[in-house]
């Protein structure tokens, strides 16, 4: 995921491109953005117009996108940049609105993660008027242009969010003509924690092509019973014939993948993983780890005190470099996931997409660099 999304300087209308001769090396957008950040297409932004609580710690934000918003497909996610203490922090959220929402507003639903830095701010402390940066919509877990006749959605927890975008898109289709038949198996701990509770029930009642099967793992606070692939056959007997979209916790997705593989219908299965930054325990600060260089396709072991620049060079990766002392920023490389430690200050960086100085950063656990 590119965390520094920006558009080529000369994008936009021919008039703006001509005016860029006056503003070079900046663009007209850089000036328009001073009037209103939403006018700047070079660094797309949106303004929160409403924050609607969904559950105790889930909030839906309605966002008016600015000029730079290039649209999305139902089911895709979007990097959202939030300013906290002067610094933009980027997180990705699934869009829960159709690609062409009637009110023109984008919507995301944020679950505040306990101890998190960004999601509690978004869920509980983002008043209307807040400007958020928007990255380009991405991901291939999305509704095909011509949906298959029968679909199965398997979701758990906040895994409902990309599927909600698809369901709302399907619901917006004209009622005439053939409509795909959709079954949603959705699991949450309790009914209280279920996002979009009323809307899903209403859709179930009103739409002939939609069947909603809720599942609760701890309905009365009793022992947990998770939704397993074994349940699926009982709840949706024709699951083998359905094009399936699954989104939820890693354990559930692995079980689903194995089950679909056993039935030799893997080609019908689409899976979305929320790649949240793995947050290993604190004591891993003192251990190194394996480094994966994603584009090069090389792995290497890294010690706690060896700069990642050296690790990469030893492994034969063409690393960008400069002063080798943390001065010149010539070695900036995006961190894909994992944790690194600044060898000068001990500061930990664990934000996916953050550009790190490899000459003064060492591994603090397993990590991947986007190079």
């Amino acid at each position: 995921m590119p965390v520094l999304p920006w558009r080529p300087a000369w994008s936009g209308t021919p008039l703006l491109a001509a005016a860029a001769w006056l503003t070079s090396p900046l663009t007209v957008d850089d000036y328009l953005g001073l009037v209103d950040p939403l006018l700047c297409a070079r660094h797309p932004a949106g303004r929160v117009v409403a924050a609607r609580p969904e559950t105790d710690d889930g909030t839906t934000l309605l966002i008016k996108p600015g000029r730079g918003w290039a649209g999305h497909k139902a089911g895709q996610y979007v990097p959202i940049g939030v300013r906290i203490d002067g610094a933009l922090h980027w997180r990705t959220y699934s869009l829960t609105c159709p690609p062409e929402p009637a009110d023109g507003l984008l919507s995301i639903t944020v679950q505040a993660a306990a101890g998190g830095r960004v999601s509690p701010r978004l869920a509980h402390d983002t008043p209307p008027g807040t400007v958020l940066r928007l990255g380009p919509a991405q991901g291939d877990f999305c509704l095909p242009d011509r949906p298959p006749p029968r679909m199965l959605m398997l979701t758990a927890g906040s895994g409902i969010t990309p599927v909600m975008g698809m369901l709302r898109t399907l619901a917006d289709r004209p009622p005439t003509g053939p409509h795909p038949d959709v079954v949603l198996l959705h699991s949450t701990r309790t009914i209280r924690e279920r996002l979009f509770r009323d809307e899903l029930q209403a859709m179930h009642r009103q739409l002939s092509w939609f069947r909603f099967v809720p599942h609760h793992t701890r309905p009365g606070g009793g022992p947990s019973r998770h939704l397993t692939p074994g349940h699926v056959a009982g709840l949706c007997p024709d699951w083998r014939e359905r094009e399936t979209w699954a989104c939820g916790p890693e354990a559930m997705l692995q079980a689903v993948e194995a089950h679909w593989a056993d039935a030799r219908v893997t080609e019908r299965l689409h899976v979305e993983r929320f790649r949240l930054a793995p947050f290993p325990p604190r004591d891993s600060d003192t251990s190194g780890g394996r480094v994966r260089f994603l584009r090069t396709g090389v792995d290497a072991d890294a010690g706690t005190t060896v700069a990642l620049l050296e690790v990469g060079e030893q492994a034969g990766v063409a690393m960008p470099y400069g002063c080798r002392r943390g001065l010149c920023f010539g070695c900036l490389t995006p961190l894909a996931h994992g944790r690194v430690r600044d060898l000068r200050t001990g500061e930990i960086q664990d934000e996916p997409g953050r550009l790190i100085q490899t000459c003064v950063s060492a591994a603090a656990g397993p990590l991947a660099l986007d190079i």
Partner: protein
Amino acid sequence: MRASGAESDPSPQPEWVEALGEELDRLRAEVIATRGEPDARYIRGIVTSQRALEIAGRIALAFSLFPPAWVGGTLMLSTAKILENMELGHNILHGQWDWMGDPAIHSTTWEWDFLTPADAWKRTHNHQHHTWTNVVGRDRDLGYAILRMSPEQPWHPAHLAQPLANALLAPVFEWGIALYDLEPDVVLSGGRSPRHLVDDAARLTAKALRQLAKDYLVFPLLAGPSAVPCLLGNLTANTVRNIWSHTIIMCGHFPGAVQTFTEDQVEEETRGQWYLRQIQGSANIDGGPLFHILTGNLSHQIEHHLFPDLPSNRYAQLAPRVRAICQRYGLPYVTGPLLRQYASTWGRVLRHALPNR
């Protein structure tokens, strides 16, 4: 710790040098831990002021047949260009504001209103000059490959003309930097392939065309009857910016007591010794807050060289503390008013035009 001046003891004792390094590391960590919204507001404020000044200056120059509009427009545009190059361009390209994670103010995406492309500058300035500050034979900024600024540099009869060369360089400084960033001397000595030179020259040409077209063709044409005064206003603004940046940059490393180093001295250099060299090889300029902003805070050259990636608005707070540390370790802390530092720099240009006595 010791009290004698650094010059009297060319091989400093490692213990106190490392202690010095640790103290400076702590200063650095303190600033990093407290970077936040006020700093972000500062740089966004400078961005907004700079763009507003530029727009106002350009509009005034569009009506510059009217002399007060010419004076006001040229003044505003000159100030805008100075801010753009020094407090914004130079510092953003150093990565001072990368911590904000904002693609709009980031060393990897920023391009400046200056002939030399940002990438070429980052290579020659951020990497080479800041790593090898004042090391004879390694720091090309030590005289910019044309001036002889230290007795260790071999003398050549051509250096007799260096006072004239330096005077002529000031008004066309951005051209000087652009050609300097092509590193023709390095290519000639085999340190960089001619292929790189060709690529760099192509990039420079593309950038220079847009820069020149903007100031000397498009804006004058749009000014209609004010075309000629508009062009002259733009030329004046670029020249004022060139002379100003040349002045400030010369004062950063060349005033009287600033030292130069040999490659032997910096071999196996520790972090503490590197810090020490930055202190001994840089000089500050005294002045008020507005003056500091207009120099891009390069008036705090010592602090900038110690901490090139800390936000420039913090240098003023760091300066008295760095100075106190220098005093405690008996280190020189070269500073003085602009005129004195500038005169001292010229003294050095004149002195080294002649062979060593």
